[in-house]
């Protein structure tokens, strides 16, 4: 059933969604310290100013360390949980999975504060490692969700066929299951990396004196003079995340094409 006005509405809605992102590059190249109209002319100065800040590169390096570690650990934990949930029946399954997925619906402030309380109580120093601990907790549910759908689209008889043809459980996993869920693993790794990169609250409270990219950006907001260079940084980040997302989407679709399943669209 068609309602023609819907298309106009949807386009307007998309404009609303994209408005902040589209404004980013405009002001990143605008030759004015104030983010306001009318535009004052073209400059690449803000990019140079951003580039000149050593603190940015330290934060970036920290974010990469945190992001990559988180992505590997959360995806690994996700593989275990997704495999257990799609393949086995065992006592306490619902409760166990519920606890693993819980961080998806808990405010990050509450999680970070409760972890902080424990870390302080037992004297664990706050640094990048504690950020990683928090990020793995938050990212694992996303990994589980993505990987569960990857494992679910596997026909169980494929596994049985491999066993029937003489493979043991381990080689079945290696020769049949892993190649078929690989696209899911890659997209899980990319998405958990992106979430970790973007995460602020946990990084802010559990990082001690260490700064990640998001904490760095939050810090810069306090200095009006730094705002245009944040616009420049934001522009670059938006381009990067679009590139990352496109890659993730590519692998997801290839995975679907490979298993011959139907495309249901979307990551969530």
């Amino acid at each position: 059933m068609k309602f023609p006005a819907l298309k106009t509405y949807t386009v307007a809605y998309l404009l609303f969604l994209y408005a902040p992102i589209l404004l980013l590059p405009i002001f990143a190249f605008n030759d004015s310290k104030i983010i306001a109209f009318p535009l004052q002319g073209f400059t690449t100065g803000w990019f140079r100013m951003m580039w000149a800040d050593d603190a940015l590169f330290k934060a970036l390096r920290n974010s990469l360390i945190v992001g990559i570690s988180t992505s590997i650990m959360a995806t690994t934990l996700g593989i275990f949980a997704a495999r257990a949930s799609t393949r086995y029946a065992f006592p306490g399954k619902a409760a166990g999975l519920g606890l693993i997925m819980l961080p998806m619906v808990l405010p990050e402030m509450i999680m970070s504060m409760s972890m902080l309380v424990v870390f302080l109580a037992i004297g664990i120093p706050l640094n990048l490692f504690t950020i990683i601990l928090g990020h793995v907790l938050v990212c694992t549910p996303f990994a589980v969700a993505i990987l569960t759908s990857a494992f679910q689209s596997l026909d169980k008889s494929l596994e049985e066929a491999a066993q029937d043809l003489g493979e043991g459980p381990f080689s079945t996993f290696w020769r049949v299951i892993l190649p078929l869920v690989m696209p899911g693993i890659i997209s899980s790794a990319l998405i958990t990396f992106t979430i970790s990169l973007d995460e602020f609250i946990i990084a802010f409270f559990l990082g001690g004196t260490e700064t990640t990219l998001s904490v760095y950006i939050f810090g810069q907001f306090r200095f009006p003079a730094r705002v245009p260079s944040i616009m420049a940084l934001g522009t670059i980040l938006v381009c990067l995340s679009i590139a990352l997302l496109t890659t993730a989407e590519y692998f997801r679709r290839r995975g679907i094409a490979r298993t011959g399943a139907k495309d249901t669209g979307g990551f969530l």
Partner: protein
Amino acid sequence: MTFSSKSETMIEFRDVHKYYGEYHALRGINASIKAGEFFSLLGPSGCGKTTLLRTVAGFEGISSGAVMVDGRDMADVPPNHRPTNMVFQSYAIFPHLTVEENVGFGLRKDPRSKEEKAREVGKTLELVGLTGFGKRAAHALSGGQRQRVALARALILKPKVLLLDEPLSALDKKIREQMQVELIKLQREVGITFVLVTHDQEEALVMSDRIAVMFDGEIAQMDEPERLYRKPASQRVANFIGTMNFLPTRILSDGARVATEVQGLGLVEVDASQVSGAATAGQPVVGFRPETLTILYEGQQATDREAWATVREVVYYGDMTYYDVVIDGTDRELRLSMRNVFGRPVLDIGTRTRVGWSPGALVLFR
């Protein structure tokens, strides 16, 4: 290649029970399948036939009893070490591999050289009629082709038993009929014991040496197709295999000859060998197949006995005509099938006609 002769037992079920929690899925299965036999498990969905097949493959454990393959108890043998291979209902073709890689999947531990294995794959592809398809991606195949890949992949391992789980149910009618014939030929060629699961009685009759009909986790009858059709062990089996007409009956005397009074047919004496198992409703009935009734045209003499009937429905099939007739003195429509012969008209609805029948073709369910 040597194969055991048909008299040897290949699979034996000894009082096999299977519970899923409280649900009793298999209720004491006892059966033996001979080497080289084409054996079918036939029954409606949920009767336990697939479960039974999967206990042979090793994908289902059993609650008690024993499953023996080639004289060996399979209790502690995992699926990957059993001398059986399976063609799955969904075919389970590995989507990330080519046709060749699928067919050669089980040869990984085979000590032969790469070239020899490749030759073996080629030979097997030829056997199933897929020569030249080796390099194709698995997901680019049609249903019939997938099925052939699944067959080749199992047969290349020269199993003692090939298990087929509803292998034809996903195919179109035409391809299905063609594959039925090919499977029979293939089975004769390789001589391997085939165990087929199907819910399609026609398919089972066409393909099998022997059939086990299953209801509610039990084997209701195990026989050759012709015997199964001629003398079903119970009214329920009779209803499941083809079409059978039933008329209520009163048993007058027992013995080597059983005297009965059949509604509409009068006094009938049948041989004790014609007496079969339970009637569904508890009350005795006689059953007879549509082709054992014939319409007697004017001047034709009954070979045995005859009765007057009225035609209620006519279904014309070209080579055959099916009539639903009601014999005087009964209230039931009986299905009757006649081969159409040139010069003999198809009767109209409402026509009064004599029908011929024969006491020897009756089966008595009590």
